[in-house]
């Protein structure tokens, strides 16, 4: 099966090349681009682990093909934190949503966390002051086998407070 040429941006970095049509976006990100932060769980759109943002909107990367992101921009969990490219430890500052989930013990094994972060970041942009109920609705498309969800909800609520208090803008583009 011959490849199809695409041009895309992943976390702000341009990528051009050929992909096989049946290559899932999740596998493209992990195996071709080398960004293994996007986790692959159920591969049929139920678990939410592979959630990334397509042009800023959360989507299941296992339910899209890499060919479909031609001309679009994808953001993965690697795109959240402020980083220094090339440094040994490149992460300088976690994104407020990452920091809040960490502090609220919103993760244990961390398998579901990248997907939850990508949903939460987009959700807080749309709804900067959510109720606990709205947060539960927003993260309902993510399965977590460790935390019992309570601390995930608390983490997202803490992130909302921090962002409202002037934390780094959620799109990651403004510096403090």
């Amino acid at each position, binding site marked *: 099966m011959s490849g199809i040429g695409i041009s895309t941006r992943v976390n702000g970095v341009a990528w051009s090349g050929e992909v096989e049509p*049946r290559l899932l976006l999740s596998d493209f990100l992990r195996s071709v681009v080398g960004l293994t932060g996007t986790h692959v769980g159920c591969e049929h759109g139920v678990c939410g682990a592979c959630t990334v943002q397509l042009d800023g909107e*959360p989507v299941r990367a*296992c339910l*899209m093909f890499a060919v479909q992101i031609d001309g679009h921009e994808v953001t993965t969990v690697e795109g959240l934190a402020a980083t220094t490219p090339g440094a040994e430890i490149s992460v300088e500052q976690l994104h407020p949503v990452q920091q809040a989930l960490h502090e609220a013990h919103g993760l244990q094994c961390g398998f579901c966390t990248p997907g939850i972060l990508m949903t939460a970041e987009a959700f807080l942009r749309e709804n900067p002051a959510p109720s606990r109920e709205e947060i539960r*609705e927003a993260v309902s*498309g993510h399965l977590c086998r460790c935390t019992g969800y309570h601390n995930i909800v608390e983490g997202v609520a803490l992130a909302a407070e921090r962002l409202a208090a002037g934390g780094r803008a959620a799109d990651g583009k403004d510096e403090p």
Partner: protein
Amino acid sequence: MKPPPFDYVAAATLDEVLEALADTSLEARPLAGGQSLVPMLNFRLAAPERLVDLNGIDELSRIEETEDGGLLLGAMTRHSALECDPRIARRAPLLAEAAPFIAHPQIRSRGTVGGSVAHADPAAELPAVLLTLGARVRIARRSRNGESGSRVERTLDLGDFFLGPFFSALEPDELLTAIDVPPSAPGEGTAFDEVARRRGDYALAGVAARVRLDSRGVCDGAAISLVNGGSTPCLMKEAAQTLVGEKPTPEAIEAAAAACAETSEPAADMHASEAYRRHLIRVLTARVVSHAADRART
């Protein structure tokens, strides 16, 4: 859990889609939001030879408030648009009310109205909601041998569209292009509700209702449809008819709900027994019809 190989066509216009579907020597499937089709590919429950991607075609995602007071929804209207677009809330509030029940936000970012209808899943919300609203579907294909013109279009009542579980009146070379939602009449109210084990799961059962009251508060039109109430998305005509000519008293609503439960044909599966689904249909119908009648009064 990887899809089988397929030939991929990124169509830029409706004509390109119809052209790609017209070659029926290949088994081709349109790719809309992909939220049902891609899982089927990943599980290898489906193995089409060609996917025709509709995501690049602007005319398929148009939403228009029509002159008659109705609504035209392009097939690629996303579920998230049903939820948020003010035109939907104005012209067909039932769609906006039901949209948050469809799966999860990440699915609603991609999933489409046309895809949901064409998939003909008896467990899906939109087919039932659109049946209640009396929607029609617009279908197009390229002219076959000997037909004049380049394109053949037809429209169909949604009630004639669903032929069986995951089986619709669409021919292999046809594309569902848009859905027409008729205007709501004065004195009309609508409502939707469902019961699911977990938020965002497929509903065990769901009910959509539309009730119209005249100036005396007597029902002069009603429609009720069920999610997971039979082998297809189904309109419960007999049950709705029991309301017509009556005031929507608790007794009249309870009678319609009982008729609805009795004439429904829910399946039993690992999630719920047939008897439990019937029970849910009765309770939900009473709740939803009552709510719709309240809205019709105001």
